[in-house]
C-alpha cells in the first residue's frame, strides 16, 4: 500500500534531500569499512534520481515563467507583474515555503521525542532481540 499522496507537498522535497545526503552517509560508512560497491550503486541511482527531479523541476519553473509571463495572463496585470507573480508562485510555493515547513515538521517531531518518554518493551521481547 502507498500511504498519503505521493509526489505532493513536503514529502517530495524530504526524499530529494535524503537522496542528496546519501553520498555523504556512504562516505562515512566507507571510512568505517561498512560500505560496498552494491551500496554505492544504490546511492548513485537515488542521487541521480534526485538531481534529475531537481533539474526537471527547475526547467518546468523556467518554462512557466517565460511562457505564461509573456502571455499576460488574465487577472495578473501587466507583463512584468505577471512574470513576478508566476515567479513567486513557482519559487515560493515549491521551495522556500516547503523547506521551512519541512524543517518545522522535523523539528517538532524531535521536540516531541524529547518530551514524550519511550515506552518500555516487555522483557521477553528485549531478550529475544538481543539473543
Amino acid at each position, binding site marked *: *500500500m502507498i500511504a498519503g499522496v505521493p*509526489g505532493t507537498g513536503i*514529502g517530495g522535497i524530504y526524499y530529494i534531500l535524503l537522496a542528496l545526503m546519501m553520498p555523504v552517509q556512504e562516505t562515512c560508512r566507507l571510512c568505517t569499512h561498512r560500505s560496498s560497491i552494491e551500496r554505492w550503486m544504490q546511492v548513485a541511482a537515488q542521487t541521480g534520481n534526485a538531481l534529475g527531479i531537481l533539474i526537471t523541476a527547475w526547467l518546468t519553473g523556467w518554462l512557466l515563467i517565460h511562457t505564461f509571463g509573456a502571455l499576460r495572463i488574465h487577472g495578473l496585470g501587466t507583463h512584468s507583474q505577471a512574470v513576478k507573480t508566476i515567479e513567486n508562485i513557482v519559487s515560493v510555493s515549491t521551495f522556500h515555503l516547503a523547506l521551512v515547513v519541512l524543517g518545522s515538521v522535523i523539528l517538532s517531531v524531535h521536540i516531541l521525542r524529547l518530551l514524550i518518554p519511550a*515506552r518500555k518493551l516487555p522483557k*521477553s521481547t*528485549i531478550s529475544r532481540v538481543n539473543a
Partner: protein
Amino acid sequence: MSGKSDLTVLVPAYNEASTIADTIRSIQDQIVPPDEIIVIDDCSSDNTADIARSLGVTVMRPPKNTGSKAGAQNFALSSVRTGYTMAIDADTTLASDAIQKLIPALDDPGISAACGLVLPRYVKSVWERGRYIEYLFAFSFYKPIQDYYERPLISSGCFSIYRTEALRANGGWSTRTMAEDMDLTWSFYKAGYGVRFIPEATCYPVEPHDFGFMKKQLRRWSHGFVQNVKLHWRDVLHISFLRSTVAIAMWDAIFASIAYLVLLPILIVFVSPIFLLAYMIDAPAVAFPVLVKAASRNEIWKAVASLPSFFVLRTVNSIFILEAVWKELVLCRPLRVYEKGH
C-alpha cells in the same frame, strides 16, 4: 532447517476463483520453491478451494469467515513448521525468481521481514494506469531511500517474507487496524527488528480496474494509515528515521490534500485560472524517476501513456485520505469493516 527453502507460503483467499490458479502456479514455478503452500479458503461461496486442491496445495478452511486477510493468515500460522513464512494475496503472481531474490534478505537474524517491488499485472483502465505510475514512482524513488536508511515504511502485505519466530512473537497479523502490513512492520521496528526492501523481487497484483473497487481499497488504505499513526505514534517517535517519514506523510495527507481540494479551487476561481497548473506542475519531476525505471523494464511508452492517469488517481487519493483523517481523528469513527478492494 527443513526441506528446500524452509518456507511456507500462506495464501488467504475469499472468492478468488478467477485468480487463485495463476497465483498458485506462479508460486509452484519458483526457481526456489517453498516447502508448502497453504491456501486459506475464508469460507468462499465460489470454487476457490476446489481449484486450489486440484493444483495440489494444502487448503484450510476456518469454521466461519474471519472477516479480514489478517484473520485468515492467523488461522493458518499455527500450522507453519518452517523458519520463514510468506504471505501473498490470492490475486498476486510472482516473477519466477522472486523468492530466490527475497529470501537471502532474512539471512541477517536482525531482519524479520522483507518485501519486493510491486507492479500492477494489468495496466488498462485509468485506475490501473494511475496505480502503475504511483508504484513506479514510489518503488523506484521513495522505497529504496527508505531501505537505504533501514526503515521501509511498510513491508507490503501482498507479498512479503517473514521470520516465523518474529511473526509468532508479535501474535501474527493484528486485526486492530485496516492495514495489517503497516501495523506489523512498525511493530517489528518497535521490537528492535529490521525490515528490508529488495527491488529485484517482483510481484504482480491485480489492481482495482474501476472506481468501485478503487474506492474500497483507497478507503481501507487511508483509514489503515491513520489508524496506525493513532495506534503507534508514541513508539514511532523513538524509531529513528521512521518518525520523520511518518510525520511528513501525515502532514502531506492533511495539508497537501486541503491545498488540493480547497485552496487551489479557491485560487482558481477568485484569483486566476493559472493556478490550475498547480495540479500538474510537478508532472515532469514525477516523470523523471518513473521513466528511468520504465526504461529499464522496456515499458517507456506504457509509462508515458499512463502518466496523466496518475494525476487523476492522486486527486482522488487526496479525497480519501482527508476523509480518513476527518473520520478517524476528528469524529473518532474508525473504519472497522474490512472490504476487499479487488
